[in-house]
């Protein structure tokens, strides 16, 4: 009577399949590491944007409009840690009276895992000050 069992070839093939699927799951760890590096970059970018925002907020409504008439590039110390960073200041007037300007800072860069990333922060500046 012939016993039913796996042949050596079957066992080898099964082993190879399992090994390949395990190696595939290794990419999960890489994703985890990439995520950590994205988180770190995000903080670097946030601080770099805040640095520029600090400079802009020190100036007056009129000075902001004079200094950034069109989309203007900016550069801060924090950019040194990023790959090909491009920072742009844009102004717009979301309210009809043009007494409130919205300042948007947008920073795009290449992440360590070669993706193009963008982050922006915005603030409002009023011509007369709050309640003015």
């Amino acid at each position: 009577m012939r016993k039913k069992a796996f042949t050596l070839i079957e066992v080898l093939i099964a082993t190879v399949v399992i090994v390949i699927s395990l190696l595939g799951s290794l990419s999960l760890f890489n994703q985890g590491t990439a995520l950590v590096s994205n988180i770190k970059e995000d903080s670097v970018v946030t601080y770099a944007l805040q640095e520029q925002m600090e400079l802009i907020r020190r100036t007056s409504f009129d000075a902001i409009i004079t200094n950034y008439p069109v989309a203007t590039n900016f550069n801060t110390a924090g950019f040194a840690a990023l790959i090909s960073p491009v920072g742009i200041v844009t102004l717009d007037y979301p309210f009809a009276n043009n007494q409130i300007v919205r300042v948007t800072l947008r920073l795009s860069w290449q992440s360590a895992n070669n993706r193009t990333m963008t982050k922006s922060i915005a603030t409002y500046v009023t011509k007369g000050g709050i309640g003015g």
Partner: protein
Amino acid sequence: MRKSKKISGFTLVEVLVAVAITSIFAGVITGVFISARNAFISNSAALEVHGANRLAMDWIVRDIKWANQTVPSVTISGTTYTTGINRLVLSVPGIDASGDIIEGVFDAVVYALNGTDLIRVVSPNAVSGSGSNRLASNYTIANNVNMLQFALNADNIGITVNTRRTVLNSRVLSDTLTTAVSFRNE
């Protein structure tokens, strides 16, 4: 008859092949396990280092926003702290019991490195005046700080903090943050 009956079992070769396959399999699983463990240790340590670095940065940013200016130096319980590239002595408006600013009274807040510990020293009335209710303190707010650098610009103070830690015997985790803040009470 006993002899004629075939006893079923494994041959030596079969057992050896089975052992070899199992070993290879176990080896691969161990490799995956070790790299998973290493990735976990180094990723979580990297996040810890990053969190500590951000915490240190946020403390400094908050105190600079409160401050009205830097002062060249201040002496707190016998130790003199001098503002420079690695040390910052801030003059912060004094506060009364309800937390409101007292005119003409200024406390000192110092950031300095003590070895690789980032310390924050607070001394009420140390810059000028008296009667401030801010509590005196001397805390370590971050460990493993490798570099603390200030740039005293005309418009703001630039800050760079680097935290560094070694995990898994040789993997160096380094985290650097840079920003600049202006005084709000100038």
